[in-house]
Structure formats: structure tokens, C-alpha cells
């Protein structure tokens, strides 16, 4: 089981779907990595021990911190979501598609990378390149617990739109084989993605998607999402439950918690009070929200 509450990272990187002003004030607030870590500590101490994060460069600093304080973070769990899209988007603008891929290929193990990457492109085989890029993004999580690895929505939905289905299989297999982790998929187009994952035989996939009462960025509509939750076999992680603040917290949580088969909610917060109030609100509707510390198993951390 995933934890019922996951802590997200949008607030740390100035991602706010409602206001650029608010985004900037959050950037200012979390400019120093200590402020980010303080907020993660607060979440951890409130029992929210899974951090669902992008592979933004600054997350590497969080990783270093958690790695160097194993006692403090005995149960700290990362759910990496890759890639940090703007890193790639800006690189594509500057260097073109292939230039961007080259830039993010790992610089360590150059021979291995060059051989695998070189022949991959020559054979027009995306498989080797995809796995190299995943490995490059995962480097920062070495020695940490990362049992679920997500593919970000910009990539998922691009591949989904293009009909590039094999990429989902390649990603899923690599994440399972190399990291012993479960693959997760973030999407704005839930019904369409579930069809494709089912076709590929990816059974009971973890899918993170917007779930909010007003249907904000829920492509296919609220009814189709409700039907999917009711009838389809997948493990739902609800995001954007407050629709960036457009829905009052209680109303938002009441709606999302009343949907069937949602396993987890990912939420962001910029204050201890917000973390606490969200946890308390959710626990009014979900009785099993208070999380107990899991026994630490030595084998569920990634090798250093």
C-alpha cells in the first residue's frame, strides 16, 4: 500500500496554477533549501512521510540531507517523478530534440553510455535511450527509499497523444527491473491513459491524476473520472484536489474522500498549519489516515 497522504513539491518550485504572484512568493519563501527541509520535517512529524517530488536539481540537496541523517528519516520515502519538464523544454528550445537528450545522458560511465546511447540512436531504438535517461534522473536517489517512480504528465500525455505506447512498457519494465520499484504514471487524461495501459497489459497501474470537484484539468470530464474510479482496475493517486485553491478545503476533501478506490492524495503546503489541517480534515473522512511507522527493511533502499 502507498501512504494515504503524500507530500508534493509544487510549492517549492513556484508552481501555482492560480497566481504568478503567489508562485513567486513561494519561490522566495523556499529559496533556501533549509526552508524546504523544515517543511518536509514538519510533514514527516505530522506522519506524512512520503515525498512525491520532481527530479529538479534542488531535490538532490534534499536527497543529500536525508541520506546523511538516516536516524532522523528512518521512514522517509521518495516517490520521484521524472523528468522535471522545464529542464527539458528549455534544453529542447536551445539544443533541439537530440541536443536535449544528449545533454541529460549521464556523464559517468561515459563508455557505457556512449556505446549504449550511440547504438541506440543508430538503431532508432528508443529503449536504450529511455533507460539511460531514467538512470540519469534516478542518480540523486541512490541509497534512498524510492518504491514508486512516476513518469511526469507532460511526457506521459505526449506519448499518449502520439500513440507511443511502447514507451510506457519500456519505462515500467526498467523501473521494476533496475530499481525494484513500481511504475507510476501522471496524466491529465485519465480515461484515455487507462485504455492504453490496459492494452499493454500493465495490470493495476498506479496513476496520479487531477481529482477535484470542479473538474479542473480532468480531461474527459468528472463523470468519466468517477466511472473510471468505480469500474476500472488501477491505483489512484489524487492530485490538485483543491484545484489550486478554487475549492474550499473542506468541500474539496469531502468530495475526494467520498470517491471510491482512491488510494492516496498528494497535496502541497507552505506551512505547518496547512499540513496539519489537511491531515486532520482527511482523517475525518478516511479513518486509516494516521500512518504508523513501517519497520525499516534494509533491502528497500536503492543501492548507493
Amino acid at each position: 500500500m502507498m501512504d494515504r497522504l503524500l507530500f508534493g513539491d509544487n510549492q517549492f518550485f513556484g508552481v501555482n496554477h492560480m497566481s504568478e504572484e503567489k508562485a513567486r512568493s513561494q519561490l522566495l519563501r523556499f529559496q533556501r533549501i533549509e526552508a524546504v527541509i523544515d517543511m518536509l520535517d514538519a510533514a514527516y512529524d505530522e506522519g506524512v512521510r512520503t515525498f512525491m517530488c520532481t527530479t529538479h536539481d534542488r531535490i538532490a540537496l534534499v536527497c543529500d540531507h536525508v541520506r546523511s541523517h538516516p536516524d532522523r528519516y528512518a521512514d522517509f520515502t521518495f516517490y520521484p517523478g521524472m523528468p522535471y519538464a522545464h529542464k527539458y523544454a528549455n534544453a529542447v528550445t536551445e539544443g533541439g530534440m537530440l541536443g536535449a537528450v544528449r545533454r541529460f545522458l549521464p556523464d559517468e560511465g561515459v563508455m557505457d553510455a556512449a556505446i549504449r546511447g550511440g547504438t541506440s540512436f543508430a538503431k532508432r531504438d528508443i529503449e536504450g535511450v529511455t533507460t539511460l535517461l531514467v538512470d540519469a534522473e534516478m542518480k540523486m536517489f541512490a541509497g534512498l527509499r524510492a518504491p514508486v517512480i512516476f513518469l511526469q504528465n507532460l511526457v506521459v500525455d505526449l506519448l499518449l497523444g502520439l500513440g507511443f505506447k511502447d514507451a510506457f512498457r519500456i519505462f515500467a519494465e526498467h523501473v521494476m527491473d533496475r530499481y525494484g520499484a513500481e511504475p507510476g504514471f501522471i496524466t491529465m487524461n485519465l480515461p484515455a491513459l487507462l485504455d492504453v495501459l490496459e492494452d499493454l497489459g500493465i495490470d493495476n497501474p498506479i496513476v496520479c491524476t487531477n481529482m477535484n470537484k470542479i473538474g479542473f484539468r480532468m480531461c474527459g470530464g468528472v463523470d468519466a473520472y468517477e466511472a473510471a474510479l468505480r469500474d476500472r482496475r488501477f491505483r489512484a493517486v489524487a492530485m490538485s484536489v483543491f484545484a489550486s485553491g478554487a475549492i474550499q478545503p473542506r468541500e474539496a476533501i469531502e468530495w475526494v474522500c467520498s470517491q471510491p478506490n482512491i488510494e492516496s492524495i498528494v497535496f502541497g503546503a507552505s506551512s505547518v498549519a496547512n499540513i496539519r489541517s489537511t491531515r486532520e480534515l482527511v482523517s475525518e473522512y478516511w479513518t486509516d489516515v494516521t500512518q504508523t511507522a513501517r519497520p525499516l527493511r534494509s533491502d528497500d533502499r536503492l543501492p548507493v
Partner: protein
Amino acid sequence: MIRVGVVGLGKMGLSHHAMLNAHPDVDVVGVCDSSGYILGILQKYTGVPTYPDFVAMLEAAELDAVFIATPSRSHAALVGTALERGVHVFCEKPLTLDVRDTERLSSLARDWGLVTQVGYHNRFVGAFREVKALLDAGAIGNVTRALAEAYGPVVLRPKGATWRSQRNEGGGCLYDYAAHVINLVNWYVGEPTGVGGTVLSRVFSREIDDEISSTLYFPGERTAQISVNWSDESCRKMTTRITIWGTTGRLYADRQECQAYLRDTARIPIGYEPGWNVRYTTDLTAPVWFYLRGEEYSAQIESFIQRVNEQRVDGVNDFTSAAATDRAIALMIADARTGASMLADGVTGAKPTRGRRVGGLAWLHRRRGRPDPAYSEG
């Protein structure tokens, strides 16, 4: 089903391809690019028919419509070829680099009754549409001035490997970033009758402009200032802002929200009140059939496909409307060459008067051994 082809599989082309492919009324029956790698990968993994040659695709794929997302330099020829074969055209902005081409293509499409659209997606952003609706409702009275800004982190170091860093390919911040806000100003205020004080300056690039400022003049003493910089790391991604002052209020919008300050004397639209009003993207955005990177990208495709279905030639961002933006850009390029209109040493300004063109700052730049910062049109 509408049979569509996509030309140019860079960032915009691939994203158009993905959204079109997901559209229930569209068959993507061909994609075309100069990169064999990209075509090979797409063909192998998605099965879409691929063409290294545009004319070959037009001949073989029986297209109803084509999406052109190639470097700007190539737009004029590709659009012309498509229109001559009776194919409806969606083209990325700017339409062309030469106003004469733009006007020729615009009238060609009109003569043939073909549907056209240019990718000025901001006209499909909820907050920017709200500004238009408020202006049309007369909410801020007579518009006196606009400020149109765009900032983002595209060129942050002195190198660049794509066509966007090359002057001859139609690269540069003016075409890539500023075109968007000029187009919004065209929508809100109209087509400028004059341009002044244009500066196209470099921050990191060798050949092209990274930073732009300019004043656009409109009838009735109205003006719009353009302030654009794509070497601004403080913005996580492209950030577009519009501020408009009027006699009874002020409007501000970015992609996320629309703020309106309305005076007591304003004609208050339904749902608004005197003083501050804010509408957020969550209220202003209509759902789309497929979301990739913002509803506006899906919505502009939907609008084009609907118009093709209905054979409706006039519509948001048709070539005729986009031509106004190309004309404004041409004025700005010409204006930038003239430099400052008044110089501190008392020498007469450099503005071209009655057909006479004087060197101005361009001359100063040459004297200092630096190249003219303005574009060459050729």
C-alpha cells in the same frame, strides 16, 4: 474525419501531432521532417506514415489540412505550396518573415476559400479572453495605454544550436516571444499606425536579439509599450503579462488570472463590482478533449478543426488577422535601425523623416565596430 498532416517535428510540431492524434475528428495521415531519426522513431513506434519531403506528403496523403511547425524562414514556401493544392493551413507564428509574403498568402487563401490559422495561442487563454471581453463591454472606458510583457529563460548563455539562434532562419526573441504579445496588443487595441523607440538588443546571442522594447502608436493618442526578454532566468517558463489602462479602470492579465480595477464611473459587467476584481484560470478555462501543456493549445486546434469542418474562412487568428502582427514586426525592425531620435550631444535625432533615413544608433554601433543590432530583413 479530417485528414491532417504535420510538418516539422520539433517542440511545437510534436505537441500538435499528439493533440491532433488524440482528437476524435482527426486522422493524422502523415508527418514530415528533415530528421531521419525522428521520422524513423515515430514510424517504428507509432506507425504514422512519414515523409522526408513535403510535396511527396501532399501528393500521397490526400490531406484536408496541414500543420506547419518548421523554422519560420520556411513558412512562406510551405504555406504557399499547401494553399495552391487546396489544403487548409495551420501555421506556427510568425506567419512569414516578409510582409509581402504574408499578404500574398492571406489573399491566396481567401481567394480559394481555405481555412487558415496562425498559432497565437494566447487568444485561447481564458484570462486573456476575459480581458478582450471586458474591453468589448467597455468596462474600462476609453483605452489610453497598454503594456505588453513577456519574459522567460530561453537563452541564458552565449551559445545555441538550433534555428532559433540564427537570424536567417527567423530566430530571435522578436519572432519567438515578442510576436505573441504584439499579437495580443493587436487584438486588444488594434493595428498600430506607427512605431517608435524600438530597441532590439542582444544579451547573450551573437546574431539575434534577446531583449526588445518598443512603443506602438494608435489613433486617438493611444500607445502600447512592448517589453520582452527571453534571457530572464527569474521566470521559470515563458511569462506573458498584459496591463491596459482606460478612463474608467485598469486591467491586468497573465496566463493564470485576470485582475480588473473598475472605477465607480465604469460600466460594470455582470458579475463584477467597483474596485478590485480577480478571475482565476480555474473559473475562466473551458475543458478540452485532451490536455498536453495548457488548455489553450488544445483549444486553438479545436477551433481550427471546427472551422475546417464548417469551411469557415474567417476566424480567430486567421491569416488576415495574423498579418497585422507581421506588419507591426516589420515596422519595429525598420524602426530599430534608426536608433535614438534625440541624441545627448544635441545632434538632430535619427528618425527617418519624409523618406530620408539617417543612421542614428546603427551608425554609432558601426563606429564602435559593433554590428547593427537590428535584423536584416533579407
